[in-house]
């Protein structure tokens, strides 16, 4: 018995220590720093209450970043899930090369956000513009990244390219767990393909939708790497007559605030991000679970 307690402690210690040191302690420091005047230069920090949060409410660049992050997240959830669900239908169909396609669609997920941001910056700013010029297509001649109205959509499209292959695999696992006899029975009963997909497949896959929506929601909300190298926040636009960056998502706004040595303010923004993410994802999971039951 004594030996078993020793093993318990020895086996849990490495993860428990790392977890405490890397996540738990910094988390509580983080909550505390959001209520101080921490600037990253002075070692001593003073408690200032909710002052930083009050500043945020009247900071246009933060409010704008918050709004476009929500817009970006919504667009992303819709785009990624429609594309990846369709891909999952393709790669579980009777196509001869389905395994090859499945492997191929997953490739973009292997490329990190930093690298693919540069690649797509080149494609959008150079390749597409050049195609537009040589074929005289008006819309393509100015880069989609240079217009405040299209930049968020473009980022969502690039993110879909990267992420769809991964979400596709979740749907694939779900499709494969549905007994083929069910679809065949419906087929014999005369249900056409789309009826079968919407009436049988999608309700049976409710659990996969919950997971996929949650994953796309949280990753879009925290998007940073691709944002940094694809647009770096640009182009400039105006919000309530204040100059703001049209594609500066929340995570980047936090990063830029901290780079300017406004550490406490950045920390307060991060806490807002955390609370917003928590609330939104709890709502999403609750709604999805309820839908799962209804279906």
């Amino acid at each position, binding site marked *: 018995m004594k030996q078993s307690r020793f093993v318990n402690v020895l086996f849990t210690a490495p993860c428990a220590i790392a977890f405490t040191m890397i996540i738990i302690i910094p988390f509580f420091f983080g909550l505390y720093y959001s209520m101080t005047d921490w600037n990253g230069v002075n070692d001593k920090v003073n408690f200032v209450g909710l002052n930083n949060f009050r500043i945020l409410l009247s900071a246009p660049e933060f409010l704008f970043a918050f709004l476009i992050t929500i817009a970006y997240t919504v667009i992303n959830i819709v785009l990624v899930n429609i594309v990846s669900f369709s891909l999952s239908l393709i790669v579980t169909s009777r196509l001869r090369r389905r395994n090859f396609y499945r492997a191929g669609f997953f490739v973009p997920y292997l490329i990190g956000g930093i690298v693919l941001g540069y690649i797509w910056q080149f494609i959008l700013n150079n390749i597409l513009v050049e195609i537009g010029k040589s074929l005289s297509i008006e819309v393509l001649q100015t880069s989609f990244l240079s217009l405040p109205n299209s930049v968020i959509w473009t980022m969502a499209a690039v993110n879909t390219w990267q992420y769809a292959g991964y979400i596709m695999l979740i749907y694939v696992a779900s499709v494969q767990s549905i007994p083929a006899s069910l679809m065949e029975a419906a087929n014999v009963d005369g249900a056409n393909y789309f009826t079968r997909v919407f009436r049988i497949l999608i309700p049976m896959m409710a659990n996969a939708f919950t997971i996929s929506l949650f994953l796309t929601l949280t990753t879009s909300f925290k998007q940073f790497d691709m944002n940094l190298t694809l647009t770096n926040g640009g182009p400039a636009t105006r919000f309530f007559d204040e100059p703001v960056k049209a594609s500066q998502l929340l995570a980047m706004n936090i990063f830029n605030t901290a780079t300017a040595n406004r550490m406490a303010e950045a920390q307060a923004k991060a806490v807002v991000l955390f609370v917003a993410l928590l609330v939104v*994802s709890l709502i999403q999971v609750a709604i999805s679970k309820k839908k799962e039951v209804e279906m």
Partner: protein
Amino acid sequence: MNDNRQAGTPRFAVKPGIVLLDIMTIFLFVLFMIPFGMVVLNSAKTSREIIFNAIALPSDWGQLAVNVSLILNNPTVDYPGAFLDSLVITFFSLLVIVVFSSMCAWVLVRNKKIWSTVLFMMFVAAMVIPFQVLMYPLVRWMRVVGDFLNVPLLGTVPGIVFAYLGFGSPLSIFVFHGFIKNIPYELEESATIDGCSRGRTFFSIVFPLLQPIIVTVLILNGIWIWNDYLLPLLVLGSNGIVQTIPIAVTAFAGAYLKQWDLILTSTLIAMLPVIILYLFAQRYIIKGMVEGSIK
């Protein structure tokens, strides 16, 4: 058509639809792969060639070797060094994550006590905390702890590996936990009766059984750690002694603004090892991802 589609219907009855789907899929597949093609094409051009014609085939593929050697021998960014550091960091992080998380998960599954439930719940709950809340307090905390213990944690490989253990263990413990739950306890009991110690029971009986889920944990963490940007940036610094590939790519793109011949070649070099690994281990990677996603 539905009347004559019974179990024994010859395959050609569905062929027209399949052919159409195949053509659509090929089109979609090519669309997905175009960015990679563009990187390869333009990595074999000079800066001038790209400006004049970014879509055309390169006039001389020998330029690819010139660009690659320019990057590998670059005086400002040490690519071979960054590659080696990335390899070392990823390898040791994965090693400690797999060994320590599986040990921890096993103890948590096999002890049904309050402390094990609470600890497991804490690991699961921590997964909702966004990195943005932790990152700045973490850097400050790591500096304080490093000074106190007199072992530098910032800017060193052990420091960042320790951080990856902290960030990687919650999800890994969760995945291992789900798998170990389904391993019959009788296996371990008989080993104990035969006089096997608890520690040895884990390493010689349980650990070998974990092999399929270890692949999942390796892939889930490997893709993330290899491509991670923010944590290495904060812990190692943008011009520290230890560098990673994503940091090298941004440093390079920052130093050679809009010189697409060099930037694209540098992204090609960054992507190539991952893609080559994927070509060989594709079956395991896809399988591991699918299994990890249902958990």
